[in-house]
């Protein structure tokens, strides 16, 4: 077994660890949902006897350090398993990427397989940082789910042998430009998950206030209903919005840097800083959409939930830019060779 094979094995192991983490996070989410439903039922039954409601929380809060860290309904065991396998997955993936770099004798961001590995590493690491104090099971299910799918797709369809790259890619800019682009994609991924959660949560907050059954829109009614009661355990809509904004800000700054670094490299390698290559167009479009998001946040009538729709569009463009543009549209970036 050579270094390249060992790297592949590590990536498979990481995918396995993330799958376990995904299951554990899902179990946690299911627990939260189940407990929230029961609490909702109980509280509606006990609404007549307010004295009894306060007695409920004793054993749960005793088990956890503070009420803020573990809301009632969280499965301590599932969260422990999820967190540890999540960390193990990050470590294995990191090792896989480093070994890949040694096997190829260069910085490991030379093709789509390697982009995907590093992107997943960044996304899962950012996720770990975001929930360092408090696990947000739904966000983890979204992000880790996408990470597992991305890793398996990379291993099965994007994999190519570890080897050197062609002269146009032999530049230190491959570390700076490509590395930052992938990091930005990873950060945008977590931000996207946060925005999805924010939209659901804000619909629910609104629906619960207005009275769930009153809403004529089926989606809004169902979000406000019992099947989404696990949403009561996630941070509030405003808090999620702030988190999504912070992540998107970091992503946007990294993306801007990607554009500038890419232009500098293009000037070195291709003799022009900007040539409307399909990849350049895709990156530009994504940049403009995220810029629109930042503007929408501060525009009256567009802040909050409506601004987050720009995040959905922007992230869609980022994904298209990575997949369709690389694979389908011929351009100067196509040589990254799948």
């Amino acid at each position, binding site marked *: 077994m050579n270094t390249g094979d060992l790297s592949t094995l590590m990536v498979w192991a990481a995918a396995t660890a993330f799958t376990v983490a995904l299951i554990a996070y899902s179990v946690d989410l299911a627990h939260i949902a189940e407990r929230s439903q029961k609490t909702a039922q109980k509280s509606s039954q006990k609404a007549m006897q307010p004295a009894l409601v306060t007695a409920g929380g004793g054993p749960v809060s005793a088990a956890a350090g503070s009420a803020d860290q573990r809301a009632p309904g969280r499965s301590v065991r599932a969260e422990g398993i999820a967190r540890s396998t999540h960390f193990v997955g990050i470590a294995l993936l990191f090792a896989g990427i480093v070994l890949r770099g040694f096997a190829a004798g260069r910085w490991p961001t030379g093709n789509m397989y390697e982009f995907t590995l590093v992107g997943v590493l960044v996304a899962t690491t950012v996720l770990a940082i975001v929930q360092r104090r408090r696990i947000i099971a739904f966000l983890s299910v979204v992000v880790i789910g996408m990470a597992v799918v991305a890793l398996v797709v990379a291993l099965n369809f994007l994999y190519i042998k570890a080897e050197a790259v062609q*002269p146009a890619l032999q530049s230190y800019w491959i570390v700076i430009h490509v590395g930052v682009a992938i990091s930005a994609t990873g950060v945008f991924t977590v931000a996207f998950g946060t925005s999805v959660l924010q939209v659901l949560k804000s619909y629910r907050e609104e629906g619960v206030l207005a009275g769930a059954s009153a809403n004529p829109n089926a989606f809004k009614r169902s979000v406000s209903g019992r099947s989404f009661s696990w949403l009561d355990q996630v941070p509030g809509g405003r*808090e999620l919005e702030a988190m999504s904004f912070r992540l998107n800000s970091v992503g946007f*700054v990294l993306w801007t840097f990607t554009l500038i670094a890419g232009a500098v490299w293009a000037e070195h390698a291709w003799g022009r800083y900007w*040539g*409307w290559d399909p990849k350049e*167009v895709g990156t530009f479009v994504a940049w403009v959409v995220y810029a629109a998001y930042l503007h929408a946040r*501060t525009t009256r009538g567009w802040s909050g939930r409506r601004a987050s729709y720009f995040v959905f569009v922007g992230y869609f463009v980022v994904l298209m830019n990575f997949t369709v543009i690389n694979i389908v549209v011929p351009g100067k970036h196509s040589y990254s060779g799948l």
Partner: protein
Amino acid sequence: MSQYRPEGISDVFTEPTEAHESPEAPKPVVQGIGLSGWLRWAWRQLTSMRVALLLLMLLAVAAVPGTVWPQRAQHPERVATYLTDHPTLGPVLDRIGAFNVYSSVWFSAIYLLLFVSLVGCILPRTKVHLAGVRGRPPRAPRRFGRFPAQGSGTADVAPQELAQRATGVLRRGWKLLPFVPTYRVDARDEGDGTWAVAGERGYLRETGNLLFHLALVGLLISVATGQVLHYRGQMIVVQGRGFANSEGSYDTFERGTAFAPNSLVPFTLKLDDFESQFDPDTLASRSFTAHVTVTEPGGEPEQKTIRVNRPLDAGGAKVYLQGNGYAPDLTIKDASGTVVSDGATPFLPQDQVYTSKGVVKVPDVTGGQEQFGLIGFLLPTKKTVQTPNGPAYVSQFPAPNDPILVLNVWKGNLGLDTGVPQNVYQLDEARMAQVKDAKGDPVVLVVKPGETVQLPDGLGSITFNGLKRFVALDLRHDPALPYILVFALLAFAGLATSLFAPRRRVWLRFAVGHDEHAGRTVVTAAGLARGDDVGLQPELDRVLAATLAAGETPDREGTP
């Protein structure tokens, strides 16, 4: 202008309530506002955030067609193919600019409007911001109860002295930049012995925001200036030969409208040698290096190298290595034995294994002989394939390990005197006939290096002296490059500052205590930040603690 409220990545603490932004607000259009009224309305619309948002999204959408259809600026040949393949749809698309998206009227209109909108929004904001920077921080509000961060404490020191101390604490600089004050501070005597200190930080945030937008304008102007002043030339240089930097020596040359051809620095460049390396398994290229001799005007010849990603600086321009290939060195004699063609002819590589196609035209034959031309392929490393018609050859490796020339012969009129410019890499076969053997099959010449082969029909002979290399060079000069880079970096710095610099206001009030605090000073504090700011309360606590230092302890929960 008194109604002005800034928009954009706004840092105003109040909610934006600009009239034309609000959907509920009455439309500013009333009857009889006249032309100036309409213009003012249009200007207000254009500079509003809604329209900016709309234009941003339009710009994003308008950029997409350029990835769907081939673009003339990048791939004219693909556009031509598309037009041939789609005879009905193609011309329609061409008319609406689908093949010239980024120079089309509609695309330009969108980004120019966007920039007008940006300037119209940013300039008034800059004015407001400058006034804000020069002004005093806003006064401490009467009540602190509604603010997200609060604190309180008591002290034995007089209010005025505490106010001075708080001013000092707030003005203390950052750890890394100790001379830059963190807060702009204003202490006031509120009467009755009460002092209030108001501090504000984060002007940098709006400064960054304005810098970002203004830098974008600078970037656009730089790019446009570069377009007007640039020049770009492409040429093929064969090993052992050179070229001089003048407009005529390029194969293709394009320049901006304001570029003066006499400003070309007449340096010369000669290709001495070319090295290439390929992966033996995947055939992928691994390294290309061109060794050249450059002579700047009035200077000594200098040995330089050009590689991919390592352009050469010469004559104020950059020379890029864009392509390479082989140029067989051939000596051709006509029927009378006169040398009619001698030298290396570039054969253009067609694929990964450098199957290279080329043409040798022989117009200057003697003795009334017909003109003839050779067209065929150079295979750098040949592989013999047996076919029913005899051996055929393909290239199996891009390096010149076992080169071979496979040529067809045409005779007749090359058409060089028709007045129509010809492509040197194509043979105009209209007035020519392919030379065939007795069976009627086209004659195929197979020539190895060092070999001399007689041409059919007694046309003469060809000698393959050896294989030389050629490089395709791209020379470009854009005087705006440094400005583009500076503005891009300024925009980046401005963006990062505008998104990450925290904007906070802190107020402290020092009042003479009554009742149980009689004789002491009661301190209350409040903080406000732009957006959710996790660092606000800790900072307020720090300021309070530092102010009350020397024995006094603050208590956040309220006085006991």
